Each structure stands twice: as structure tokens, then as C-alpha cells.
């Protein structure tokens, strides 16, 4: 991969949270790079600082030490762990929320959102309210809300955690499909090793807090098939075993 494809480079990132009584050292010397069209997974034990990394990259947290270089004018979209749809807004109004706030709501962007809704089978629900949708549909709405701003990079924080195992599989197929179609670069945070292997082309493994990078793996599985299909490939179990051993229990 050449240098022009480098979107973000993170060097010696350190982060502590402070309270009156103590300091919670969370991230310690985290360094990695993100390239165009990467599908980068981050896995690690609960509380190790995965969300913290995303919060820092998205700019929600600004007090940290270390160097983060982003390519100029890089647009970052962040899809949170929960869908956080606004119950008093319709599905369509929810999806254009980010556009409205950024004063980018015009005929073009409206058309783009309506297209996404159509493409991902939500168009007929656009005037309904969130409570009328299933968990998986809400997750897709949240993704479209993030995509509406046409980000170059998508940060996904446990995007499927609110779903039951069955729906989780089909929604991850859906969302994988959407992301591939829209040609995005991804960082996916998850607890789930299988999910990471079936979706990502690189996986960062973090240790317990204060977390450091234990290992980074390249996953070489056919990128043109669905995640659920990838799970059936022979190499899948090989990667699973490799990564499972590495994770702090």
C-alpha cells in the first residue's frame, strides 16, 4: 500500500481518564495506520478502551497525548453502539438529522438519502416512527443517518450489539453489503471474534487496560462473498483459533 492511500496515522496514543480520587490509565502507546478501503477490526476485552479510541478519532475526546495525523478534509462518520434514533422524528427525519445540523440538506443530499432508504428496503417506512421498526431495521436507519453525510471513514462501535444472534448475522450481511457498495473505509469495534474475521481485512487485538496493541493480523478471505458465507471457509477456523488464543480472558 502506498503512502497516498494512508488516511489516518496514529502514533503513540495515550489516554487517561481522571476523577478526583484516581487516574484510569486506558490507552498506552497505541500506534496504527488506516488505509483507504481498509476494513479494520478492533477487538479486546470489555473496558480496555475500544470505544475510547473511536471517541478520540471522531473528535469527541480531545484531551489525549500522542500524534494523530488525518488526511486533509477527511470526513469521519461515527455509528454508535445504540441506534439512538429520536422517537419524535420519523425515519426520514432521523436519517437527515446530521445533514440538517451541518446545513447540508439540499435536493441532492435529500435524493441521496431517499435512494439509500430505497436501496436498503426502508423507503416504505420513511414516514413511520422508530417504535414501528424492528431492531435490525433501526440499525440500518442509524447506518443511513451516518452515511447521509458521505463520510470517507466509518467508525462502527459494536453496531450489532443490540440484536439477537440470528438477526445479528443477517444484519451484518446487510450492513457489510451497504458498506461495500458505498465504497467506504471502516473501523469496526466488536467483542465478537467471528464477526471481526468475517467482515475485516485487518484485526487489531488489544490487551486489558491500560491497553496496548498485542498483535495485528491480516485476514485473507475472499472479500467478494457475504460474511455469513465467509464463516464457512476453511481458513476461517484457522484465524479463529489464532485470535482466540491471543485475547486476554
Amino acid at each position, binding site marked *: 500500500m502506498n503512502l497516498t492511500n494512508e488516511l489516518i496515522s496514529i502514533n503513540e496514543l495515550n489516554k487517561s481518564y481522571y476523577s478526583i480520587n484516581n487516574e484510569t490509565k486506558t490507552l498506552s502507546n497505541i500506534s496504527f495506520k488506516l488505509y483507504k478501503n481498509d476494513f479494520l477490526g478492533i477487538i479486546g476485552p470489555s473496558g480496555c478502551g475500544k470505544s475510547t479510541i473511536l471517541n478520540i478519532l471522531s473528535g469527541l475526546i480531545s484531551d489525549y497525548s500522542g500524534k494523530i495525523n488525518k488526511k486533509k478534509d477527511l470526513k469521519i462518520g461515527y455509528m454508535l453502539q*445504540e441506534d*439512538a434514533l429520536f422517537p419524535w422524528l420519523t425515519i426520514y427525519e432521523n436519517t437527515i438529522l446530521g445533514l440538517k445540523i451541518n446545513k447540508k440538506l439540499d435536493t441532492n443530499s435529500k435524493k441521496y438519502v431517499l435512494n439509500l432508504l430505497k436501496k436498503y428496503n426502508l423507503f416504505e417506512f420513511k414516514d413511520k416512527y422508530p417504535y414501528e421498526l424492528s431492531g435490525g431495521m433501526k440499525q440500518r436507519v442509524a447506518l443511513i443517518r451516518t452515511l447521509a453525510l458521505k463520510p470517507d471513514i466509518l467508525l462502527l462501535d459494536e453496531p450489532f450489539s443490540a440484536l439477537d444472534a440470528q438477526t445479528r448475522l443477517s444484519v451484518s450481511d446487510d450492513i457489510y453489503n451497504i458498506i461495500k457498495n458505498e465504497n467506504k473505509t471502516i473501523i469496526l469495534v466488536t467483542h465478537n471474534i467471528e464477526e471481526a474475521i468475517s467482515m475485516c481485512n485487518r484485526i487489531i487485538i488489544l490487551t486489558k487496560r491500560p491497553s496496548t496493541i498485542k498483535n495485528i493480523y491480516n485476514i485473507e478471505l475472499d472479500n467478494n462473498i457475504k460474511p455469513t458465507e465467509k464463516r464457512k471457509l476453511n481458513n476461517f477456523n484457522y484465524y479463529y483459533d489464532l485470535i482466540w488464543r491471543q485475547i486476554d480472558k
Partner: protein
Amino acid sequence: MTYNNYIKKTKRNKRIILFSQLFILITLIFLWQYLASNNYINSFITSSPKNIIITLINLYKQNNLFIHIFITLKETIIAFLITSIFSIIISVILYSHKLLYKIIEPFLVLLNSLPKVALGPIIIIWLGANQKSIIMISILISIIISIETIYNAFENTDKLKIKLLKTFNASKKDILYYLIIPSNKKTIFSSLKINISMCLIGVITGEFLTSKAGIGYLILYGSQVFNLNLVMSGIFLLMIISFTLYKLVNLIIKNSSK
């Protein structure tokens, strides 16, 4: 049970309730009148429905009835508008300036626990024995609790939704406009309903302390000259005013939340 039966039964229950309520009310009024007419109770200190009606007619003939009603209504509505508008504005300011809230919080608590009517004499000295003082007393009685209610609701807004808006680089103003206000509409509305009742209480309290007209004045004056008919008439008018104002606010809320 079929659907039709269910509807019938619900409607019948509604009728029974309404009928019983009217029956109780009318019985009480007639009982009151009967006891007073036959001197079982001393109508000099209990008044009677007939006397109340006569008193109201007399007030009307002297061209005073609507003046009193109008004055109390005016004071209440002014106090209500000021209380409601300012409690929302102040809550917004405090919410967007956490440090300011932390600083003034103990003073708010102090002010809230103080019986506001105790401040009445000071206000009358400062603002004069006039309607301004009455309105001020009414505002003082209602505004602190209104601010507390709205501010607390703001403060309890879903943190996740705030985080979401921040991922869109939303400013404080955006967060207020897109999230804090709409998600707390219900609380704001219910505080309006409380405000209208509290403001009427405040106005009557104020009129008790200093007034030349108004329902509070009628009641106080009536008790001073030992005219219980006037006192009871005042209370009767107050009941109607309070009920009407409450319904009115309710109606406005219902229409605006459609």
C-alpha cells in the same frame, strides 16, 4: 362479550359517573340551602346558595363583578406568561452554563424552601401597593419550582443522544434545538399546567396582602366586614376561574402538540 357490548358498557359507565357526580353536587347545594332556610345552620356564617346568587347579581348590577374577575384574570395571566417564558429561558441558560448552575444551586434551594409569601411585605415596599407587587409575588411563588422542574428534565436528557449529535459536530445551540427542547416538551407542558394553578394561588395571596380589587380582595374584604356571602361568592368565582384557566392551558397544549 362482543365489541358492541363493550362500547355500550363503557358508555354506560361514563354516564353513571357523570350522573352521580351531578347528583352529589346538586344534593349538596340543595341540602345547604335547605339547612340554611330552616335555620338548622346559621347562614350568617355559612352563607347559602341563594345568598351567593343574590350577592353575585348585586355585584353585577353595581358593575363590579366583571371588574373583579378581569383584574384577577389579568394578574394571573401576566404572572403565568412571565413565569413560563422566564423559567424556560433561565433553564436554558443554566443548562448551557453548568458552572453557573453549580454556583447558584444552593441559593435556588434556599429560595425554594423559603415560604415566598414572607417576602410579600418587602416586595410591597419596593414596588408599591399595586398590581406590580401582586404579579411579582405570584411569579416568585411559581417560578423557582418551574425552573427546577424544567432544568432537571433538561439535565436528564439521554446522554447517548447528546453524544450522537456531537458526532455530527452539533453546537450547544443545535443540541438545545434538536434534542433538549423537543425531548422535554412533555415536561415543559406539564410545568405550564402547574404554573397556571400556582400563579392563581400567588395572585390571590398577593391580593390578600395588598389590593383594591380582584377576587382575593372580595374575599378579604368580605371577611373583614363579616359578609360571608361575599366571601363564599369570591370562592365560587375562584373555582370557576381556576377550572377555566386550567382547561384553557390544556386546550392550548393539546392544539400545539398536534
